[in-house]
């Protein structure tokens, strides 16, 4: 079970605009990215995110897990999320 935390130096707007205060970089998330990022902010772990998304959308757990892994990898690369 993977747990994540959002670094303190990331500012997030409701619209999915991220500002990384340590580098001045900015990022835009789409609707789905914003939804997942908010789940991470609320402390949900990998399994809980998969459960919530697959319950709400017509997508298999395996397929969504792959997309989620890609998304989390990008977030980690840019310093927007840390794995605990």
């Amino acid at each position, binding site marked *: 079970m993977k747990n994540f935390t959002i670094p303190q*130096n990331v*500012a997030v707007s409701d619209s999915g605009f991220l*500002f990384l*205060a*340590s*580098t*001045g*970089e900015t990022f835009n998330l789409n609707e789905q990215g914003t939804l997942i990022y908010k789940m991470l902010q609320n402390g949900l772990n990998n399994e809980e995110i998969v459960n919530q998304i697959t319950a709400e959308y017509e997508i298999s757990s395996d397929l969504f897990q792959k997309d989620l892994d890609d998304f989390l990898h990008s977030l980690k690369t840019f310093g927007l999320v840390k794995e605990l």
Partner: protein
Amino acid sequence: MKIAVTGLNATDNPGPGVPLIRCLQEDKSLDFTITGLIYDSLEPGIYMDDIAESCHLIPYPSSGLDSLFDRIRQINETEKIDMIIPTLDSELYGFVKIQKRLEDIGIKTYLPGTDMLNIRAKDKLFNFCKSNNINVPKNILVSSVQDLYGITKEFEYPVAVKGIFYDAYIVNNFDEAVTAFKKISSKWGFPVIIQEYIKGSEFNVVALGDGTGGTVGAVAMRKLYITDKGKGWAGVSIEDEPLIEMSKKIIEKIKWRSGMELEYIKSAQTNEYYLLEINPRFPAWVYLSPNTGQNLPAAMVKLAMGEKQEYFTTYKTGIMFVRCSWDLISDVSKLAQISTSGVIYNGK
């Protein structure tokens, strides 16, 4: 209190005078009026509302120190100046050298000594950094085209070709280096600096040193948009403790007294900061500083006047600036007045 400020050239290569005045205006505890000291009758700050109550032409630094001091003394007879804030690199040596004479006629400054200015000069910075364990790109000083053949002995292309005061070009081969060398040396003289090119992102810090090694305040900024002249046209304040600590260390070593801008590049390869330049005055983006909670120009004025000034420890991150070009409309009589008499009193 009457404060005289230079650098009202708010052009596409902006001087720091206008933003510095705007900083002072943000501090409602300061009671002052501004006199602009200008080199050209078309400096935009002359034509801006509520920037300078009066403006006076002063001679270019190349005219000599006596000429500069005599003109200031003449202006002071009518203006009764309490403090002068020079803001342009090329004039600083002159003002530093006449600061004692200015003090004698009742004009305060808050400037570094010549020794401090020399340490951070672009041709001396490398040695200073090396002896203080501060990361700095390698450089060589060149004074002739012949010297450019030595570039490949020291490092690989591309390299940065920089003037002693202003201008920098990134060049990819010998021919481009020769062109850049000729352009820069004809404008800014010798030596010309050849600097190792480090690929990465640019970061800048605006700071105020108290002259004893202390940092009154420091704000870090990342440029978000850079013009074709290499000027930051938009930027955002960032939180970067290592960058601020590195800046404080430099200020401590130089015992810098005055406003300053430290320019860094963060290597994309190593993620380490390298000091590119120390500019000996507040930058043109200094108006960001009061909006992050550190009004460094106002703090400098208070220190110069012997008033108490708390040292800043924090600032707001995520505060942006975006420059704009804005046409000012004026009657030509204003230009006529400043061109013919060398002085203009706005609103009078």
